[in-house]
């Protein structure tokens, strides 16, 4: 290694500094131009808008169909679909990267019900109140997820709720208490040797574990964030642990399970109970060439709210929002209006099993085409949203780590809640303070 003579070294340092200043100057020029105001393209103009959305398989196909129908209605507008990751957390990151970069596309974005508050708080999505959307036509619980500080930032696209699936051939009537669920699961396991577990649920360290905990009875709505260390929450967390380690009705593998694993266990007919979202209902009742696609569960599927003392089901689903920087606000909103029309909602419900967000879409036509939607109403009637707050990502990651530490036996439910409670309270306070 050569040692530079002192003076050269100083000069080199001067050179580095000068170059650094130059680079900083360039960067400053770059950032100052991006704030210029943009002119809006009118609805009637010929234009292309970008629609960022998730969805594989039938859901993706349903979106393509809906977009084609929209383009027929508005021949001057072309919609280009930007596929986001099927993993919810990753899709959120992708959108946030577009927003942080100040991109004017995508124009329309699909957002999980837990994201709009965060996006609105950061000024990334447009306030749609001026367009006067008919907020009363949606389920109130889901509509609330799109509202922030008196504005309407996101419009519900389809609703989702987490409920308990049970096999009608193995369990005669829906359990009405947790203890009954446990004994039903145990007796099913004892009589049918082809079963591998009694209850499948998502216990992996991700958002799904939070919705599972909530569906098992945890109260984490906005009014509970000041103190989540409550008996109901301890009981729900204890149930998750006990199902694995005390009752033995769930395999320890559920601590690594996500929705898709629960889906696989249910459709293969290896469990009498499973906690999951409504798309499983559509899959269970689906046919291929006139034959049941999943014979193990076809015609033997029922879905109810989880029988905790006060049954509730975690609210999921997707909303639609408009990028605040989009220059195609009018066309973007027109697409949202079309996607939330009764026609488009019913088409998607029948085709992909996504439950409509618009109440009027639950009509005789829908029930005729897909009778199971009638049975799903019980679950939708008790939907409970996760807290609508811009700091939800931080709160959720605390809850995920807490649930994981309990399921793996590193901490007891009450100890975990009493240590996580104050952190959540503090995070919630930072979200409301400024």
């Amino acid at each position, binding site marked *: 290694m050569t040692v530079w003579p002192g003076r050269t070294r100083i000069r080199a340092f001067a050179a580095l500094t000068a170059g650094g200043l130059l680079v900083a100057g360039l*960067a400053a020029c770059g950032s100052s131009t991006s704030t210029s105001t943009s002119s809006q393209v009118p609805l009637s103009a010929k234009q292309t808008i970008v629609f960022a959305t998730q969805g594989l398989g039938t859901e993706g196909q349903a979106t393509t169909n809906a977009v084609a129908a929209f383009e027929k209605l508005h021949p001057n507008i072309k919609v280009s679909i930007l596929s986001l990751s099927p993993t919810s957390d990753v899709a959120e990151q992708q959108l946030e990267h577009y927003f942080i970069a100040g991109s004017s596309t995508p124009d329309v974005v699909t957002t999980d019900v837990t994201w709009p508050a965060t996006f609105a708080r950061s000024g990334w999505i447009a306030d749609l109140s001026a367009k006067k959307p008919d907020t009363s036509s949606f389920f109130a619980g889901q509509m609330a997820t799109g509202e922030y500080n008196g504005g309407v930032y996101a419009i519900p696209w389809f609703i989702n709720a987490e409920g308990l699936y049970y096999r009608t051939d193995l369990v005669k009537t829906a359990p009405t208490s947790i203890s009954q669920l446990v004994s039903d699961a145990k007796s099913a396991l004892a009589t049918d040797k082809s079963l591998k577990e009694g209850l499948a649920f998502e216990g992996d360290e991700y958002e799904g574990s939070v919705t599972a905990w909530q569906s098992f009875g945890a109260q984490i709505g906005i009014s509970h964030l000041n103190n989540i260390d409550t008996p109901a929450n301890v009981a729900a967390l204890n149930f998750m642990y006990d199902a694995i380690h005390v009752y033995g009705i769930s395999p320890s593998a559920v601590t690594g399970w996500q929705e898709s694993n629960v889906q696989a266990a249910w459709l293969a007919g290896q469990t009498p109970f499973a906690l999951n979202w409504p798309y499983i209902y559509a899959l269970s009742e689906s046919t291929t060439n006139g034959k049941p696609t999943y014979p193990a569960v076809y015609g033997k599927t029922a879905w109810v709210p989880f029988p905790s003392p006060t049954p509730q089901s975690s609210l999921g689903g997707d909303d639609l929002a408009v990028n605040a920087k989009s220059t195609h606000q009018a066309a973007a909103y027109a697409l949202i209006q079309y996607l939330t029309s009764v026609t488009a909602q019913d088409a998607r419900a029948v085709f992909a099993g996504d439950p409509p967000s618009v109440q009027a879409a639950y009509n005789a036509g829908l029930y005729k085409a897909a009778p199971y939607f009638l049975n799903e109403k019980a679950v939708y009637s008790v939907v409970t949203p996760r807290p609508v707050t811009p700091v939800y990502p931080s709160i959720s990651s605390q809850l995920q780590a807490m649930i994981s530490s309990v399921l793996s036996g590193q901490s007891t439910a009450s100890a975990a809640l009493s240590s996580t409670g104050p952190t959540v309270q503090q995070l919630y306070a930072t979200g409301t303070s400024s």
Partner: protein
Amino acid sequence: MTASPQSVAPAGPPSGARPGTGRPQSLLARERRFGYLLIAPLIIVLLLITAYPLGYNIWNSFHHVDYLLPPLGSFAGLSNYSKLFTDHEFLPALVHTLGFTAVSVTVETVIGLSLALALNKPFRGRGIVRAAIFIPWAVPTVVSAELWRTMFDPQQGFVNFILTKLHLPLASTTWLDSTWTAWAAILIADAWRNTPFVAIVLLAGLQVIPSDIYEAARIDGANAWQQFRRLTLPLLKPALMVALIFRTLQSFLIFDVVYIMTGGGPGTSTNVLAYLNYHAFFYLFDYGYGGAVSVALVVVALVIATAYRRVFRTDEVMA
């Protein structure tokens, strides 16, 4: 653009400042200026891709840059740094990372050295065995981590399958769900991928050791252990140092294996610094806190690199 070469070479004025010293100096100065002009593009590119992001990151670490909680950019003093010591996440992650680095580098070096010694001996099919051993290193880490995660799956995984078939204990272990078994799984995945690297470097080091000195040692009556201890190891030191520096820094910055296999779980028990950093940037979008974690990472990595350089240097003096 032209501003930088001019300010780069304040050597220009001296010719005027010191009149009378004659042409040779100004020629030297001119040559020097030309030299700087030639390397200017390179320096600018380097600044753009390293110095600027680093400076920007340091700036972030002293400001409130939480994209989910705007407004952004207010001065935050040392609050992002003090959070490192109060948030119950950074310090455990630091301990995990250092512990993992120590264990994984030791294990990989011991196995890698044994492999290199074995591969240095002539035997039939040595070429094929050498090539085969390096395959894991040619597999992208993401792919190998996904493979290992699948292998450790408690129900469909190969690990529990083979343990069951052989009637061995631990056959019903949920590997990634308790602290120590999760660490074991990460260590195995990491060692499988990286031991070949250590072996390659050490094998190259072994091959330049002349064989006649061993002959001399044998004539003097040195046994195999003495030959290894007194000849092989000292002569292998430079190669060993290269392998150690690379592996220690890579191990310290471990990310992909943890991201894919455990996501830092169960709970936060396999959380490491690089994962914590990723989480701060791309999940929480808190560039201030993330910046502080990055700076801490760089500082610790520099300390490690400097420590190795010290060892390296004393070694040179001795040799």
